[in-house]
């Protein structure tokens, strides 16, 4: 069928009109109200594919047909302008106004097609380079926070080097993939988190709790031209069965013709702990002796029986009957404000046929704790080359290196995470002290004297390094197969690759307190973990686009089609060595070694076709697309799964005075979510060795040879309007996502000898609303005062509709919370995906177990961006707000259990239950019979960004001009400056399990920080 279509398209090329006589028009494009040139703007003749671009002085030269023509000029970031040019006119100048409301943007609709945003049939979220770069960010997620309507973006914790989750339009899978697909210049790139196997040091439960970094962190935000978030079914025709979670399309900067331009940016700044709740102020020695970490029965007598005699001795040594020392452990460990810096530069230029863009970036973030930090280095080159008049090629290569030291954090069963160690250590000793031999003093507290750590020693001597070298490269060839007044046919071939190796090294020397014999970790004192993961993604696309516009211009029809092949391979190996000889780092000679080796291979193949039909004076767009694809991860790797999409939009231009335009739009489409690699096999489990023989045992979870992709059907309807002379813009979108063939992992009766199976056996529904209001209340040409304000509101909720007969409610291992005592997710038909299950103590003393207590999903989220420019100054702010969404505050639970909480001694609401607030909370929780005690409202308002920038006027730059400096920009910026929240902890944004379908567990994360940077940007 496709063959017929392609060959029919090719056959149509023979019909071509003869070229007519031509003349030349030239002129200049400048910013309205000033003489500032606008380089690289496109100038074209309306109706025929003829165009030119302006040079660095804003000048263009264009051959146009004889007779009256209409010229249009446009440039991203400015409003388009159309001018009628009489037959004899040869000079046409344009003055463009800034497009602060982004009315003129171009949006992606297919693998090789784009369209003007004003015609889009679904909601579009775009973030420009300027919005991304203003305030330095540890990673792209961080830079996108508060800027993408329809996405919930959260950082997993505060460790340097990134690690965050982007969730688009709420939950759309339970056990399938939950992260969006990331595509950079057409190359499908990896956003995987590689396990560092830290759980072998912390004895935590799974790799989600290891505070890993998702690899989006490697990308240099300064290389990005724009980020477009394809939220729903609009993505289906492009990415089919990987599109359920949305697609983040990143376009990088390309060369522009004109004289070479250089940009050099230097930033200097620092990071600082955003919130320090402090610790308990012990009043006197008796209070400390009776605390749970010392546990003396009768403290006043020196010979009293104490649960922890060493702790009692230490307490008596430093406390008196009326006072105890106070050490601010959080401030001492997480109080570093070491210098951080970033140097980046770019060079671009070229002629009409050859354009280049080269950039470099070197950034170092110093963590707020010693021996933590992140370094990112990158070099990127992009060349655009015209080959003859019909072929253009783009080749780009980006080489990156990311190095991070993230310390140790998150869930822990060896007390090695500092927030665990501090929880069980009354803060009356300076743990930074050394003993006579120069070693850190032994922390005498904790449940048992050895089963505790000295976090200062841990962070001084332990290492957790990750080093990633990565290359992303693409080559694209565009062939203008035919071009005439009525027909335009382009053929596009793309090949892209993403390849990286991630090497990690974790080292806990045997001298650490939590590695001593007798501790949980001390069976084999000392651990060294060394691993390497190689990831390789390759994709090739071939597509053809035929645009047909009849002579009468009643419509324009764009027909496109193509094929895509994608290959993904991940190989990973790790050696965990436990029981190290002092001073030895290598695994050789360790008492106990464990090795891991795994290989994942996945191949996808797809065909797609799309028709965009634009008519009624470009007011109505009808769009239809279909994609069919197969994958090696499906049970039947030969079977093609088909995902169609239909969309329509209609613009009502100037219906009333004061209303510029109202657009009605709607899209209904399907997308999929693939099973995971290996789920289609019936396997056995390697149980280990006995008597020198390997033993194979029944697999706890059995595979399913019939497994297939989940299927999303999304319908989205919306209204966009621009009002008040384009000074106000409103967009409202409602969406409904029904997911069928949901992948579920029901728990079986274990007496069958099998624990779980994986099947397509459920359905769920996510509904939501997205509203965006953009205002430009002040736009004065005389003094250059402009104020642009954007406010967004989003809300969604995901509900599980039903499970197949026999499928019981199930939960995610520890990534979805722990037992009911602490609150956990449990996927149950009829309930919210993010419902938190726990226990409740009823008034009559009975306990209701495993019931819904709260929901992790926020009620709504809002974001407020404001930009104010005046003269050469610009002030930009981004404020992010979350209302509702419950957090399981297990960090607080640790401190209450250790009797060390910041607010432990506040008055108790009921002294009969607990003498002080901390004791009251812990006793009310009662070992988890009353889970709600530690479930907190996660509402917050965060000042994400403030930046004040100053463009130094030319006349002040005389000294620099000698060195060729054209522009100088100075700015001061801050990120995550303030958090306003009643949350009783560091930050409700964090999550213990990394990227999870519903985030809500705060458990000993690396505390989040704020950052300040001073920036000098020079343009040459």
């Amino acid at each position, binding site marked *: 069928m496709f*063959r017929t279509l392609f060959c029919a398209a090719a056959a149509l090329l023979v019909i071509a009109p003869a070229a007519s006589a031509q003349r030349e028009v030239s002129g200049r494009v400048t910013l309205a109200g000033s003489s500032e040139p606008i380089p690289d703007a496109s100038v074209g003749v309306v109706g025929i594919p003829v165009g030119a671009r302006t040079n660095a002085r804003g000048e263009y030269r264009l051959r146009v047909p004889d007779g009256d023509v209409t010229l249009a000029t446009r440039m991203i970031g400015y409003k388009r302008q159309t001018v009628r040019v009489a037959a004899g006119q040869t000079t046409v100048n344009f003055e463009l106004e800034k497009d602060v409301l982004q009315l003129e943007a171009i949006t992606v609709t297919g693998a090789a097609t784009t369209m003007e945003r004003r015609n889009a049939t679904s909601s579009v979220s775009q973030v420009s380079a300027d919005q991304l770069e203003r305030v330095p960010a540890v990673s792209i997620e961080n830079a996108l926070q508060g800027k993408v309507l329809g996405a919930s973006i959260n950082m997993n914790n505060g460790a340097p080097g990134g690690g965050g989750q982007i969730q688009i339009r709420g939950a759309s899978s339970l056990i399938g993939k939950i992260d969006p697909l990331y595509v950079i210049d057409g190359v499908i790139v990896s956003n995987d988190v590689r396990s560092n196997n830290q759980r072998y040091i912390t004895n935590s439960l799974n790799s989600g709790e290891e505070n890993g970094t998702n690899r989006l962190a490697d990308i240099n935000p300064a290389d990005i031209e724009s980020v477009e978030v394809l939220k729903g079914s609009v993505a289906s025709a492009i990415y089919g069965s990987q599109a359920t979670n949305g697609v983040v399309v990143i376009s990088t900067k390309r060369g522009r013709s004109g004289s070479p331009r250089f940009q050099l940016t230097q930033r200097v700044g620092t990071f600082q702990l955003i919130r320090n709740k402090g610790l308990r102020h012990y009043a006197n020695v008796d209070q400390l002796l009776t605390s749970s970490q010392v546990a003396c029965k009768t403290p006043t007598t020196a010979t009293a029986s104490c649960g922890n005699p060493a702790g009692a001795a230490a307490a008596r040594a430093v406390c008196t009957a009326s006072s105890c020392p106070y050490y601010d452990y959080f401030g001492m460990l997480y109080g570093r404000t070491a210098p951080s810096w970033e140097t980046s530069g770019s060079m671009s230029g070229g002629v009409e046929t050859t354009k280049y863009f080269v950039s470099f970036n070197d950034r170092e973030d110093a963590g707020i704790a010693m021996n933590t930090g992140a370094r990112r280095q990158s070099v990127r080159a992009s060349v655009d080359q015209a080959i003859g008049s019909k072929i253009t090629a783009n080749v780009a290569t980006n080489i990156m290196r990311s190095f991070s030291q993230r310390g140790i954090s998150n869930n822990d069963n060896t007390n090695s995470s500092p927030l665990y160690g501090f929880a069980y250590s009354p803060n009356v000793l300076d743990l930074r002290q050394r003993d006579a031999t120069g070693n850190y003093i032994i922390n005498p507290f904790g449940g048992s004297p050895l089963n505790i750590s000295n976090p200062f020693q841990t962070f001084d001597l332990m290492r957790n390094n990750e080093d990633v070298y990565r290359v992303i490269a693409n080559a694209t060839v565009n062939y203008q197969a035919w071009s005439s007044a009525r027909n335009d046919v382009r053929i596009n071939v793309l090949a892209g690759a993403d390849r990286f190796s991630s090497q990690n090294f974790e080292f806990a020397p045997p001298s650490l307190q939590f590695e001593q014999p007798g501790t949980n970790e001390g069976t084999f004192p000392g651990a060294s973990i060394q691993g390497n993961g190689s990831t390789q993604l390759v994709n090739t696309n071939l597509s053809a686009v035929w645009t047909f516009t009849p002579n009468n211009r009643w419509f324009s029809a764009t027909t496109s089609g193509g094929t895509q092949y994608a290959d993904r391979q991940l190989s990973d190996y790790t050696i965990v060595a436990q029981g190290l000889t002092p001073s030895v780092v290598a695994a050789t000679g360790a008492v106990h070694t464990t090795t891991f080796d795994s290989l994942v291979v996945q191949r996808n193949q797809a065909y797609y076709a799309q028709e965009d039909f634009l008519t009624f004076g470009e007011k109505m767009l009808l769009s239809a697309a279909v994609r069919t694809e197969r994958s090696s991860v499906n049970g039947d790797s030969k079977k093609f799964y088909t995902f169609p999409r239909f969309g329509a939009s209609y613009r009502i231009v100037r219906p009333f005075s004061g209303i510029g335009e109202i657009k009605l739009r709607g899209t209904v489409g399907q997308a999929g979510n693939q099973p995971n690699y290996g789920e289609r*096999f019936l396997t056995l489990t390697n149980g280990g060795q006995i*008597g020198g023989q390997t033993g194979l045992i029944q697999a706890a979870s059995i595979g399913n040879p019939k497994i297939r992709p989940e299927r999303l059907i999304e319908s989205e309807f919306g209204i966009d309007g621009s009002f008040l002379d384009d000074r106000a813009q409103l967009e409202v979108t409602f969406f409904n996502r029904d997911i069928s063939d949901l992948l579920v992992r029901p728990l079986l009766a274990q*007496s069958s000898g099998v624990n779980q199976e994986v099947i397509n056996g459920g359905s769920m529904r996510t509904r939501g609303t997205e509203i965006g209001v953009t205002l430009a209340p002040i736009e004065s040409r005389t003094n250059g005062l402009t104020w642009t304000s954007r406010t967004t509101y989003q809300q969604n909720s995901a509900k599980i509709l039903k499970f197949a007969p026999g499928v019981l*409610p199930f939960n995610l291992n520890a990534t979805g919370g722990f037992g009911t005592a602490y609150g956990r997710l449990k996927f149950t038909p009829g309930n919210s995906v993010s419902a938190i299950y726990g226990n409740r103590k009823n008034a009559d003393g009975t306990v209701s177990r495993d019931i819904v207590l709260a929901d992790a999903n926020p009620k709504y989220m809002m974001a407020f961006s404001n930009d104010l420019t005046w003269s050469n100054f610009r002030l930009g702010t981004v404020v992010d707000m979350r209302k509702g969404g419950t957090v399981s505050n297990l960090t607080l639970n640790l401190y209450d259990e250790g009797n060390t909480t910041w607010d432990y001694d506040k008055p108790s609401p009921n002294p009969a239950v607990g003498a002080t607030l901390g004791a009251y909370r812990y006793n009310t929780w009662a070992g988890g019979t009353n889970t709600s005690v530690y479930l907190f409202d996660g509402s917050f308002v965060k000042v994400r960004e403030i930046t004040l920038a100053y463009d130094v006027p030319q006349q002040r730059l005389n000294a620099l001009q000698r060195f060729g400096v054209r522009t100088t920009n100075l700015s001061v910026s801050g990120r995550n400056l303030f958090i306003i929240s009643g949350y009783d902890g560091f930050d409700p944004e964090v999550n213990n399990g990394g990227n999870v379908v519903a985030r809500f567990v705060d458990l000993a994360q690396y505390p989040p920080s704020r950052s300040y940077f001073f920036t000098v940007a020079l343009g040459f």
Partner: protein
Amino acid sequence: MIRHVARATLCAAWLASLACSADKFNVPQYNAPTITGVNGTPQALQLYVSGVLLQERNNIGGYNNDVGIFGRESYSYFPTDARSVSHYLIGLSGANNTRILDPAGFASGQWFNWYRNMKNAVNLVAFADANGALSPTQKSAVKGFAKTIRGLSLYRVIVTRDTLGVPGDIPADPTAPAAFLSRDAAWQQVTAILDEAKADLTAAGSTAFPFALDDGFAGFNTPASFLKFNRGLAARVLVNRSKAAPGTNNGIPATAYFIMYPTNVSPVPIIRNEELILLRAEANLGAGNAGAALTDINTIRTVSGGLAPLGSLGADPIGALLYERRYSLLWEGHRWNDMRRYGRLSQLPLDLPSHFVAKVMPIPKQECDARGTPTQCQ
């Protein structure tokens, strides 16, 4: 010309994409053994046998730990998680003011793993039956081995669930679980499985096992000698059936401790001669042969314990027997059941007023949920 180029390009690309053959999409499983990949190989039998042995070994540590805590032979010192104490020693309020263990908590474990090993044994029997390379006597030898371990696994679940009863069979379809058996029926099922194993081992005659057993089975590694192990277990089942570290942790003081299994490769006994002698003593007590029982108990006291022989078993002969069993079989998983079957759980110490002695381990919540919460679930 252009038409030809375009056509040629498009059609070539189309053909190139077709060249991605179906085989390229049939990506194998690289990281785990597949059933089809293993079954045809000569190593398969040994791999399955070792799997059965390995599962028993992997389970026994947790089992001895659990029942050791219930029988107050040991305590878990794991200070980062209070549930390591509360879930074993404090439990939940059950019906009628009783205390029970949390069916969704830590102390509900070792359920799946024992059934998983029964499934391993069933898989092994099925594999042997379908294996043309084995002679009929070799098949019998394999089945005798598999069923003995299956019986042992079923013993472990009924001894921990007692009055609740347990399912006795492994269903072919894992979504259709087997029916619960009452306590007595489950005990009889254990005996029946061990007796079936006996018949198979006997039928194997003088054939050697067509696989290797680990050196824990030295002296019991032929069908004929393995039968002794089988009969030892059967004796334990019959006797049981006839009656139907330093620091502080959550307030439990400890001033002394001992080390029984110093490393994670230390042998953990399944059954020893010492237990067989004690079982004989117990059987003799039950049969009224106090003299014979005293002889056996004194053998244990003098040979194993280095203690003086007793003149008589005194006013509480069962108490004297349980005393010997307590120390002879320390942390081998017997104390709790011994006290329960003689109705003496109340004699076990309570370290804190909040503690209780569990009567049974619960049927895990997952099992209850999967069956729609039958009466065996509390």
